[in-house]
Structures are given as C-alpha cells and as structure tokens.
C-alpha cells in the first residue's frame, strides 16, 4: 500500500506538475515512464472491482463508432500510443475516482467525448504527456502527407500496428444538414483530417482561435505590458523612494575626515588641486603655433583656412635628363659655386643621367626636408586680405572737361609788336581793347579782335603793372612805371566817354586836408603829356609793383613792397587824394585787391592774406596760405572765393566762408606761378607760370552754401617760349567771352579763344589715315593729346598728333635744319618742320618727287594741293602751285 500511495502521490504530483508548468512535462514524462508501468500494473490489479462504470461508458462508445471500439479494445496494451494511455489513464482515474474528484470528473468528460466528439485539449494533454515528439496525432501513421491520397480508399491510413484505419462512417448530406440544424455545437465542430473524425472545440479553443485571428497574445495574457511606474523621476520628491531609514554613518562625523581637514589646515597634507598646479609649473609649456587664441579651432579652420605654402613643382631643371640648355656650362657652374647659397637661383647643379636607373640617391634629401619644415614653420600664419581697390576709384570723380565748355582751348591770335618781356596786360571792361606793358618801356593798346596795335605809348621806365578802370563809364588806365603811377586816358573807344572822362578829371576839386600832409602828391599832366594821354602822375617813394582798381572805378590801390609803412596806398580819383591805410608794415606786401561788392581790402603778403574791413578799419580775417611766397591773387566776382598763386608752384583756392585754410591746392605747374586770374562771368580761372604754360581750370562756385566749389583743370595752354627762365608773365580773361590773354617773356601776347568742334566725330570715319589730318583732328577733339608730356602715352602713332605735339612741347623740333637729326620719324613733325624749313615741300607739282612719304607733309600739302583730301584729281591740273609761285615772286 505504501507503494500505491506513492504512485498515487506520483500521479497527483504529475497532474499538478502538468497543470502548473507545461515546460517540464517532457522531462517529467520521460522520468516517470518506467514508474508508470509499475504503477499501472499495480493500479490495474488493484482496481478491478469497479469496472462497471467504465463498461457503461464503453457501451456507449460502441454505439457511436467502431473504430473507437477498436481503440478501446486495444487500449489495454501498455506500450500503446497515447490514445491508449489516455484510456489507461482514464482507467486510472476511474480507479482513483474516490481519491481525486476533480480528476474523475475530467476523466468522465473525456469518456463522453470519446464516444462522440473528442476534446483536443484534455486528450492532447495526455497525448503529449507521454510522447515528447512534436509529431501530431500518431494514431494514423501515414505521416504528413496530403490526405487526398487516401480519398479513394476505404481506410485513411495505418495505425502503429500497421492495421488499416478505416475511414469513419460519414453521413450523407441530409445527416450533415440535420447535424447543422440540430446540433447547437455544430459551429465549433471541426474534422480531424488525419482520422476523419469530428472534433468539438472547447470554449478555450474558440477563444484561442479568436485571439489568434485578432492577433492577440495566444496565451490569453490580460496585459502584455505592465503600466510604467516612474520611480526615479527628475522631479524631486518629498518622500524617499524607499522607506529605509538613513544610515548611522551618514550623520556621525568621520574621524578620518576631521583628521584630514586638520592636516590640510596645518599644511601637513596637500590637496589634489594644489599638487596639480605644482606639476604644471614643472612641466615645459607648449603652445599651438597655428592656433588663434580666441577662436575655436574647428571654426577657425573652416572659416579662414590658410593653406600651408606649397613646395614648387619640379621643372625641367630638376629632371634627371634635363634639356641641354639647362645644364651648366663651366662658367655658370663657377658662378653658381661662387654665389652665396641664399643667392642661388637653384640650389643644386642640374645633372644629366642616361637613364633613371643611374640616378643616385639624392644627397640633399634630408636637408631639403628640413628646409621645407623651416618654410612651413616660418610661413605667415595670418591671413592678410589684399586691398583689391582700383586706384582710379580713389581719385575723386571729376566731370569731363568736354562737359565744362566753354573754355579757351587754342591759340587764336598773337599780338605781335613788343620786343621784350611783356610784363602786364589788362583788358578794357567792354572787351574791345587790351593794354600791355613791356620791358621795352612801351605801353601798347591793342584791338582784341584783330590783334591790331592801336596805340603805343613810350614810358620812362619799365611798366610793372597795368590796370584798366573796371567802370565802363570811365576811360582810364593805370600804369605803374617804376616809381610813378600813371593815370592814362588811352583815348580808345567811345569818344563821348573819353571826353566825359577828361572833363570829369578837370572838374575835380582838390580838397587839401589841412591836418595831415598827404602821403604823396598828384601831378596833373599838361601839354604834350596830356596830349599823349597822361592825366596824372603819382610819384611814389619806392617802386610800385602792383595796382588795382576798386570795382566802381573811383578808388585804386598801389603797392610798394619796399616802402615799409607806406607799402599800401589807397587813392581816390574823384578827390585826387591818397591815403595810407596801414601805419605798420605787416610783411612784404605782394598785391592788394578790393572786394568786388563789400568794403573789404585783401592784402597779400608773402605768406598770409589779410582781409581788412575798410569801414570799421579792422582786420576781419587772416588766411593761412601755406605757401612760401605768394605771387598773385585773384578774387572771384562773388567775393567769397579767391585763388592764390605762389612762387612754389602752388595754386590755392580759398573759400572765405569755409575756413582760413586752403580749400584746395593744385600743383599742376612745374615752375613758379606768376599770375592767377578769375573770369568775371564764366566759371573759369587761369594760372600763368614760368614753365611756359597757362592752365585753365573750371572753378564753379555754387549759390548753395552747402555745396563746395567744383574745381576741375580743363586745359593746359602751351605756346609761349621760355626765355631767360621766364615763361608766361601775366594772364587775363576777356571780360565777356571765354577767352584768355597771356603775355610771355617771348614778347608776345597770345589770345586763346574757342576752337572746338561741337560734335567731334569718330576718327575711324576719316577716310584718310589719321596722320594726314594732323593737327586738325586734335583741335577738333578727335584725337586726344594727353596733358602729361609723355609721348609714349599717346594712343595713336605720334605722327598723328602732328603739330599739336610740337606746339605743346611734346615733340621737340630742333632748330638746326637737318631732318636726319630728328629723333622721331620726320612725319611726326608735320607742318612744323615745313614751316621751319626743315622739310622742303617742293614747288614743282609732282607729289612723287617728295622725298618723304606724303603724309609727312601733313596739312601743308593738303593746303597746297599736293595731297588731295577732297578731290582725287590729277595734281598737275591743280593751279595752286601756280599762284604760290606768283605770290612768292610778288612778296
């Protein structure tokens, strides 16, 4: 019985085990196989008493199906399949009915199932309990084959014994229909293909299938994922996560810590940080060569990448087989050896090898690598942005001279007659007459339009300065001759005016001031002198260098630089008196001018311009000229601007409203500036210099006070020859037209008017080569002769610029007559050469006889008909040459 008990216990255990954990059922089954046999025997033997119930059940089974019967009948076999074992088990259970009710109940159910429909769940349990194989139903041993193969056979397969498994009897359609109608469990009945038997699915099976279909967990677990409880959040919780009380050590001070603190305090112990510092001091300091202090390495590299300098690529010289011209000759090699290593162009001697195989190891390799490293080390580490500025952008943008017309451009008339330096010129207010004073002790009066000398006055001395009365109603002219100031009536122009002036002079009542003695006396001229035009002679104590009129023509001022306190005298015509406005000399006075509108007097000394208010008798302004020696001054007709020329080549513009410092300084002249002059109407001013040029500038003064004056140099006028180191002495504008007069040391007065073509046409449209048109083109603005004197800057061949170049001093025509001595091809000298007799234009008519190419003869030939610009006819038919000869004879 003890054994039975154990078996019973074993069975109970087994069942429990199975129910609890399926995982181990294989193992447990295998373990318990042998035991079971024993137990079964014992069980079987011991439970024979109650077969009734089982018999009843068997009967029922028999009713149902034959195959079941067979199974049942053979279920006694101990080595049977699971089915049999189930049967056995059921037997066991039946036997053990009293012991375990639950098991019994289950067994009974199974039995019922067996008769009709078998429940898989419980049966399968049993099946797999005994068999570890995953193989399905082994009641049929045909294996996993399509069961259709047995369709035509009465059996459906073979059992373990090899016996045929006869197909269960299948009802007809009617039975099927009745089943469907009657059986409430029809919907959960399926057919086992292997056995052909119907199986009734349990509720669990159905729910499992439904779960599979809904893709739920097949095991039927309620919740796959447990809800997450965030114990360790970032939020500080008021309660501890655990309820564990704090350790004791957490609130009892450590004795070691106290000892260490004490040791640190006492200096016995060093803190770790202190130790580190000490270590740093001992270590050598390294720093990044290429690193910028502030910027992040990565961004810096990205942003401003400075590539390391590249080594030059090898050229032909470095070749093992260089072209022979690269190989050194002996001299070259010696020279190379003699040079300092730094000075050598290449740091090796090129050598030639027949083949690459013969090239030896490079002896300088290490050294060169080292030098390369040095290069890298020494290369610049800072990126320098190159200023990519067009230098022309830095120059202030000035309007083109062409847009600033009119201004004088070309010499129009030469006033010939003087034989020495023409010191001074002055135009009359109407612009019909011009007066000039010359070192040959004459004063000449010219007709402006024709250049006709209308009158010549012999004076006793050198006329230093001449000034025509600006009042058109008074016909008087001041001439400063040495120490005398002559007041002349030139007797030109309107007769009525002349006589009126004379009568006015005669009617002057001389008012003698009783108190002070006048600085000088007026001598009234009479008789011969009167007839010559002299009206007054004002004898000054010293030499007069400058005279100027007040705008209304009544007052005039004279300057005697050497007369100390009497340097400036102001005279009044209508009262015939003179006065000395300054008691103390303020320097060497150069010139004085009256303000055109207001009662101001501008006094130019060597370095300063002083502006005096004549009414208040005080100094109102002192202009710093920043020049060494002021030579001349001119006041704009508005009175707020003035220009100053100086002997140190500077032309200075002052804006009186702006500052006492120069507004602009022009340094265009190469030599001392002798005279500056404003035009009365046009925005022009001119400066005459010892370098033989007159520079005309556009000087626009705007009414808008905010806008600064516009100053543009527009034209350099050449023409005066430099004699005795003196070029142009004086210049003055025509009062109404944009013309300028200039007087030079060469004894001529030149007059520049406008000779501009309004619409310059394209040079390319000229039918003949441009050189033939010579001067014409330039003067028409077709060819530009640059103001700087370098011939090399000319865009066209110099020959095209012909006479112009020469007249502007760009080309030198030598006085000696040899054409061969000309440095440039003779054609460049154009007409000039011919006019100077350097080139012969043959009188006979044949162009072919000309020794030089016809273009050399420039305009001359054209004008003489030797070159046919307009009419390409036979030269021989032209009659000009005829009358050239005639006139030559006549002359």
């Amino acid at each position, binding site marked *: 019985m003890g054994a039975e008990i154990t078996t019973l216990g074993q069975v109970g255990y087994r069942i429990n085990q199975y129910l609890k954990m399926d995982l181990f059922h294989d193992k447990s089954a295998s373990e318990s196989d042998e035991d079971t046999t024993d137990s079964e025997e014992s069980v079987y033997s011991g439970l024979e008493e109650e077969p009734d119930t089982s018999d009843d059940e068997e009967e029922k089974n028999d009713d149902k199906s034959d195959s079941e019967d067979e199974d049942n009948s053979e279920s006694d076999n101990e080595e049977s399949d699971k089915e049999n074992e189930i049967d056995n088990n059921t037997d066991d259970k039946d036997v053990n009915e009293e012991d375990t009710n639950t098991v019994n109940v289950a067994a009974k159910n199974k039995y019922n199932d067996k008769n009709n429909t078998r429940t898989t769940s419980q049966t399968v349990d049993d099946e797999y309990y005994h068999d570890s194989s995953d193989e399905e139903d082994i009641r049929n041993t045909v294996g996993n084959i399509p069961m259709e193969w047995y369709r035509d056979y009465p059996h459906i397969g073979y059992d373990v014994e090899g016996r045929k498994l006869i197909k269960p009897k299948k009802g007809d359609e009617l039975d099927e229909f009745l089943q469907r109608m009657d059986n409430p469990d029809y919907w959960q009945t399926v057919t086992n293909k292997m056995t052909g038997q119907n199986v009734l699915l349990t509720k669990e099976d159905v729910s499992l299938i439904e779960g599979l279909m809904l893709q739920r967990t097949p095991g039927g677990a309620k919740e796959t994922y447990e809800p997450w409880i965030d114990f360790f959040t970032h939020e500080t919780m008021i309660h501890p996560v655990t309820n564990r009380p704090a350790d004791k050590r957490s609130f009892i001070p450590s004795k070691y810590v106290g000892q260490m603190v004490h040791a640190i305090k006492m200096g016995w112990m060093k803190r770790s940080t202190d130790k580190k510092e000490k270590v740093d001091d001992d270590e050598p300091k390294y720093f990044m060569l290429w690193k910028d202090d502030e910027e992040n390495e990565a961004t810096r590299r990205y942003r401003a990448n400075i590539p390391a300098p590249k080594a030059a690529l090898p050229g032909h010289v470095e070749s093992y087989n260089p072209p022979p011209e690269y190989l050194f000759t002996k001299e070259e090699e010696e020279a190379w050896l003699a040079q300092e290593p730094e000075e050598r162009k290449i740091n090796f001697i090129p050598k030639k090898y027949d083949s690459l195989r013969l090239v030896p190891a490079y002896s300088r390799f290490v050294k060169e690598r080292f030098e390369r490293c040095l290069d890298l080390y020494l290369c610049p580490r800072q990126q320098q942005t190159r200023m990519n500025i067009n230098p022309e952008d830095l120059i202030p943008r000035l309007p083109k001279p062409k847009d600033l017309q*009119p201004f004088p451009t070309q010499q*129009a*008339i030469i006033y010939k007659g003087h034989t020495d330096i023409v010191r001074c010129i002055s135009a009359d207010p*109407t612009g*019909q007459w011009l007066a000039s004073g010359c070192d040959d002790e004459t004063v000449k009066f010219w007709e402006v*339009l*024709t*250049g*006709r000398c*209308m009158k010549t006055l012999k004076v006793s001395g050198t006329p230093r300065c001449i000034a025509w009365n600006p009042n058109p109603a008074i016909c008087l002219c001041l001439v400063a001759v040495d120490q005398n100031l002559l007041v002349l009536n030139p007797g030109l*122009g*309107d*007769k*009525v*005016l002349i006589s009126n002036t004379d009568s006015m002079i005669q009617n002057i009542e001389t008012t003698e001031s009783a108190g002070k003695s006048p600085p000088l006396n007026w001598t009234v001229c009479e008789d011969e002198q009167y007839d010559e035009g002299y009206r007054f002679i004002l004898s000054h104590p010293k030499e007069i260098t400058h005279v100027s009129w007040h705008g209304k023509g009544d007052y005039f001022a004279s300057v005697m630089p050497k007369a100390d306190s009497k340097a400036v005298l102001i005279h009044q015509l209508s009262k015939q008196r003179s006065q000395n406005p300054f008691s103390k000399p303020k320097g060497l006075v150069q010139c004085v001018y009256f303000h055109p509108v207001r009662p101001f007097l501008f006094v130019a000394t060597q370095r300063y311009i002083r502006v005096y208010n004549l009414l208040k008798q005080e100094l109102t302004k002192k202009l710093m000229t920043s020049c060494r020696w002021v030579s001349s001054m001119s006041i704009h007709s508005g009175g707020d601007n003035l220009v100053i020329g100086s002997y140190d080549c500077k032309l200075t513009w002052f804006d009186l409203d702006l500052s006492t410092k120069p507004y602009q300084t022009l340094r265009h002249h190469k030599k001392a500036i002798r005279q500056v002059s404003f035009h009365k109407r046009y925005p022009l001013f001119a400066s005459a210099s010892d370098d033989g040029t007159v520079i005309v500038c556009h000087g626009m003064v705007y009414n808008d006070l905010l806008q600064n004056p516009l100053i543009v140099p527009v034209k350099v006028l050449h023409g005066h020859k430099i004699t005795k180191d003196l070029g142009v002495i004086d210049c003055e504008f025509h009062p*109404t*037209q944009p*013309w300028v007069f200039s007087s030079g040391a060469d004894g001529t007065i030149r007059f520049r*008017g*406008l*000779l*501009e*073509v*309004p619409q310059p046409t394209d040079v390319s449209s000229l*039918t003949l080569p441009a050189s033939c048109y010579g*001067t*014409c083109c330039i*003067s*028409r603005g077709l060819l530009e002769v640059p103001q700087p004197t370098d011939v090399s800057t000319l865009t066209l061949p110099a020959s095209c610029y012909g006479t112009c170049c020469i007249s502007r001093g760009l080309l030198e025509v030598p006085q000696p007559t040899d054409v061969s001595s000309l440095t440039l091809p003779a054609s460049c000298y154009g007409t000039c050469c011919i006019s100077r007799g350097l080139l012969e234009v043959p009188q006979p008519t044949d162009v072919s006889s000309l020794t030089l190419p016809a273009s050399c003869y420039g*305009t001359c030939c054209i*004008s*003489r*008909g030797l070159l046919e*610009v*307009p*009419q*390409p*006819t*036979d030269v021989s*038919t*032209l*009659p*000009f040459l*005829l*009358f*050239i000869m*005639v*006139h030559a004879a*006549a*002359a």
Partner: protein
Amino acid sequence: METNNIPHVQARFFTKQPQFSVPSAPFSVQAQVGTCDLSSLINSLLNEGDGEKTNVDFDFLIDGEFLRLNLDKHLENKGISTESLVDIEYIEKQQAPEPEDSLVHDDWVSCVQGCKDCILSGCYDNTVRLWSVNGSPFLTIPGHSAPVKCVQWITDDDSTVKTFMSGSHDQTIHIWQWDCESNSVDCVAACRGHAGSVDCINVDHTKQRFCSGSWDKMLKLWSAECEAVEDEDEDGDIPHKRRKTSRRKVQTRVPILTLSGHNEGISAVEWIDTNQICTSSWDHTIKTWDLEQAEEISSLQGSKVFLDMSYSPLNRQIVTGSSDRHVRLWDPRSSDGALVKSIYTSHTGWVSSVCWSKTNEFLFISGSYDSVMKLWDTRSPKAPLYNMTGHDEKILAVDWSIPSSLLSGGADNHLKIFQYKE
C-alpha cells in the same frame, strides 16, 4: 576672271548742260572709280559721236552732293545701295580761281568791296582807297580819324558819279561821292550817332536807306540819299561843285531808327528784304529785325561769337564765320531745332569773313585768320573746292561783289584779287 570679281555699280549719267549730254542708258562702272575715271568715261562717250575731241573735267553729284571719294566709299558713307541704279549728275568742273593781282596798302586792309570795275578798300591807316579791278589805284581818301572798319558801295550802276560809304573806329559813317571822270571824291555826309566803332554797314536794295551795326550794341538805320547828287545835276559843273562842296560843310546825319537788343557788339548786318534786316553779334546770336515794326522778329542762338555773316538772296540762307574754325550755314526761316544746316570745316583759324556768290547759289567764300581764303560749294560739305593762299597774315575781309573777282584783304597790307571763271 579678275574683272568679274571687281564690284560694279549700275550708274546712269545725266546733266543739265545740254552740250555735254550723253545717252541715258545705264552704265556699269567699277565701284572704286573716282571722279577722274568717271570724267574720262564721259569724255570718251562724248568723243564717240562726233569727230572733234573734247576733254572737259567734270564733277559728279550724287543726290546733290559732290563725289569726292571713290564711288563705292561715297555710296557706303551715304548708305546708298550699290545694287540699285545710281543716278549721277555731272557738271563741268569748277575751274580754279587764278590769282590776278595783289594791291599793296600802307596798312592792314580791314574791309573790301568791289563794284563793277572798281574796288573799294578800307585801311587801318584811316583811309579809304579806290582801285580799279586791274589793280591801278584811283584814290586814297583820308577823312576818318580812326581805322576804317567797313566800306560799302551805294550805287552800283555805270554812272560816272558813284557813291559809297565807310564806317570807322571813330564812330562815324561817311558817305562819299566819287566822280570817276575827274577822279575826285567828296564827303557828302557824316553819320554820327554810334557810340562805338562802326563794324558793319549795309545798304538796302532801293539804295535809299542803309543800316549799320556797331560795337555799342546798337543797330541804326540811316538815310542813304545823297542830296549832293541832285545839286550836282543841277549845276553840272565840276569846278563849281568842288567849290560848292568845299564851301558847304559836311552834312551831319542822325539815324532814322535805332534798334537795341543785342548784348554785345554787332559784327554784321544784312538786308533780307526791304523791311527786314538780319544782324549777327558777339553775343552769339543772329537776330532778324522788322524795320516797320522796329522790333526784333526772331533770334538764332549760336555758341560762338559771330565775326561775320552773309545772306544770299538766291537761296535765302545765311553763312556765318565765328570765333572758331567753322563756317556754318543757317536758314533764317526755319525755327525748328536744327538751326545749323551744315558746318564747313577746313580753316585752322577764326573765320573772319564770309561772302556768298552773287550769281551762283551754291558758292561762297570764306577768309580766315589762318591767311587762307577758301571757295566752298554747299554741295561739298566736307572739303572746300579751292584754297586760295597768298596772304602772309590774317585775312580780315573777303568780298565777291564782282562775280568774276574774289577779293581778300588782310593784315599783311595786301588786297588780293583772284580771277574766278564760271
């Protein structure tokens, strides 16, 4: 082969001179021919017909402009297609003027005018001189107290007594009577009123009035009648007249009318018709005046000082010389934008004087400070027909009053006469 490669132009030649007419059938001429080749072509065509040889130089006009370059270049410049038929008019070439004489003065010759066979010139030595066309001097007339600036014939008929006038720097205009037979001259009247040098005078077609322009900006109208002529006709006795004129004081005239409007001196005055005059001035304008209304009608604005002006009744156009190197052609009737019809540029100095031909509407002459007188054809704007050299100094005056003589006076004291052949 080569000839085929050379471009040809279809040209039809025609002329208004019937003695030179050629068949009007078009010819194919090489494109790069010049006037010489064309001229020889015409000559050969003319010589084909009759036995006698003609050798005339021709000038060729295409669309009213002289052919001066090669034909293809000319067509290219004018934008005329060489494919189409080109009508070329040819005329006998203008013969070159020939220098005839040179009359020497004592001083600069400021003004000159011819009349039939007499030449009148004003001189800077305050005299007016009378010459025959042949160059023989008739008279030297002192009378002015300052250089003479302008002279003008009043009568241009063949009568023995001729009148003329002269204006001077002394602000007066003198009217003179010259008896050809006795070669004596009388000052009939002195016109006073100008307050500046009288720079220009001009008499109208009726010879009744004349007007003068002066440096004083005024334009004055005067009577040109010579009362002395009537007296003389009454008397008919020359010694008597002499006596009479010597007895009688020189009549002083005052202007009929004074017109102001110019801002600068007046440089030239011309009659357009009996009531309209035209003036050019230093203030860069050409003004037209109506004498009946005594007011300014129109004004043409130039850019330079006008030194001289000439009006041609033949083509009703004005040429001006100004203080630059150009001669400009104006149409006083047009008032639209392009006032300057064309510019003739060849001079190298200021153009001091210009004068239209009295007979040919295309021709005019110009004198310049570059001492060259040029003969221009309006149809040849690029180049003058002929240059007349000879002066050594500035030319101050030119005149073409005698159709066969071109006169020029200059600062070299010479008055040059060039013979002009039609």
